[in-house]
């Protein structure tokens, strides 16, 4: 038996005591001590989230508030459009969009959510990238634009019963649609909620004051339909939902075109659009949108039972031949009931149903290119 990692000198979220009290196994993740699973275990936590409601601590993620001088939010929106190739100027108050920071070679520095609160924009970024993202913004946004860290806890409540559960504390949450943002009063505290998440299910991400985090988490967990869910199930849930993990499925070397995230880049930012280009790497991304790319991100479905994980090389043939791609993340999909993976393969081999082979422990195992997501999404549109 190979070893199992421990934890070192790490940061803690405001919910650390909550995790320990609920029997979590804590592991190091992005400089934080985070719960990888609770006594229920990853499989049951995953299935519970798909059938009921799961509570996640995602306080390790970065939350940034962006403001403009004199409250002219359009200035902040324009400034952000210079580093993010999406439509932020057209983002209505009370709505959120998915986007990414690009670099000069068209790669993805990080992916993020951008919310318009009327008087400010709120960005939610990945834990491992939050310092780099903040530095990137300070370097690229004009001096007058305010960039402030929001020191709040962040809780996700995900699953088909999430809205019903949250509505018992904040009934107004039920009128929200997918990607709406709204301030909810929870146990007397103002909490900024978005109807979104990263599991493929309906649900909410809720920014709560640090001092209220434990009480709110405990109250939510006290609801019959809610279980605490760790990072292990969070990863298998997002993988089945076909959602990218920055650092694995997307990074500085993969472009949004290769990663098949071009749905996030609207017409207005593309060739011929009113605010075309004007972001780092625009020349490369525009050219790729026009001419295509040599590799694409795809779903991969192993035929057997052996999980195919990130880093595994993929071949077109059962024996010999060149490497034509690799898996970027993978594991067992509890809702699918078999292994699932995603990765990059040559464009000519990216059609769903294409038979490929993964090399695992010296053996080539059959796997097929699959449609993403692996499970239908439950978003409340």
């Amino acid at each position, binding site marked *: *038996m*190979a070893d*199992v990692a421990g934890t070192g000198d790490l940061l803690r979220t405001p919910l650390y005591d909550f995790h320990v009290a609920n029997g979590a196994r804590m592991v190091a993740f992005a400089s934080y001590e985070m719960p*990888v*699973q609770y006594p229920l*275990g*990853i*499989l*049951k936590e*995953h299935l519970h989230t798909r059938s009921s409601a799961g509570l996640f601590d995602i306080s390790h993620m970065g939350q940034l508030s962006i403001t403009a001088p004199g409250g002219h939010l359009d200035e902040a929106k324009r400034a952000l459009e210079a580093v993010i190739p999406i439509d932020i100027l057209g983002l209505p108050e009370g709505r959120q969009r998915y986007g990414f920071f690009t670099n000069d070679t068209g790669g993805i520095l990080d992916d993020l959510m951008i919310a318009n609160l009327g008087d400010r924009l709120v960005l939610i970024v990945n834990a491992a990238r939050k310092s780099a993202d903040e530095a990137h913004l300070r370097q690229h946004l004009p001096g007058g634009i305010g960039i402030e860290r929001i020191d709040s806890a962040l809780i996700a409540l995900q699953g088909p019963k999430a809205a019903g559960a949250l509505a018992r504390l904040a009934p107004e949450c039920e009128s929200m649609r997918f990607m709406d943002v709204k301030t909810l009063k929870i146990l007397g505290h103002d909490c900024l909620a978005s109807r979104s998440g990263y599991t493929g299910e309906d649900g909410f991400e809720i920014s709560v004051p640090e001092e209220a985090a434990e009480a709110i988490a405990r109250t939510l967990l006290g609801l019959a339909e809610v279980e605490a869910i760790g990072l*292990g*199930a969070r*990863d*298998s849930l997002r993988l089945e939902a076909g959602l990218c993990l920055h650092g694995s499925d997307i990074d500085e070397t993969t472009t949004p075109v290769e990663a098949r995230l071009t749905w996030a880049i609207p017409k207005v930012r593309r060739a011929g659009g009113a605010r075309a280009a004007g972001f780092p790497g625009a020349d490369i991304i525009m050219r790729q949108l026009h001419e295509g790319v040599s590799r694409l991100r795809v779903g991969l479905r192993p035929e057997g*039972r*052996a*999980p195919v*994980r990130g880093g595994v090389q993929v071949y077109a043939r059962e024996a010999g031949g060149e490497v034509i791609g690799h898996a970027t993340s993978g*594991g*067992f999909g*509890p809702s699918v009931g078999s*292994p699932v993976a995603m990765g990059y393969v040559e464009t000519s081999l990216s059609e769903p149903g294409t038979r490929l082979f993964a090399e695992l*422990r010296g053996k080539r195992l059959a796997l097929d290119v699959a449609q993403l997501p692996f499970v239908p999404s439950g978003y409340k549109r």
Partner: protein
Amino acid sequence: MLKFTKDHEWVKIDGDTATVGITAHAAELLGDLVFVELPGVGKTLSKGDNAAVVESVKAASDVYAPLSGTVSEVNEAVVDDPSIVNSDAAGAGWFFKLELKDVAETDGLLDEAAYQQLIA
């Protein structure tokens, strides 16, 4: 005679045959197992060789041969349903049996008290 390794395997020695599995402690640390790959019957293993692979939802781990010998039997039930290892690691969740090459090698294994101390 029940023995253990520092790699969290249990070894039940009966004459010159050893039955091998992973400990309940190891199964607990790994979490829900979803895949087990066992050696082929007839395979000759030296002590310390990679003998089997276990994968939980989260990660893959190797299972090493605790002693030298030839694989005489494997437990296909754990291949068909890896969760047996989580529910009964020390019993129905056994992995494989070895015809030992040198019974004296068992002297190098831990007894139960030493193993319990290791994981305490």
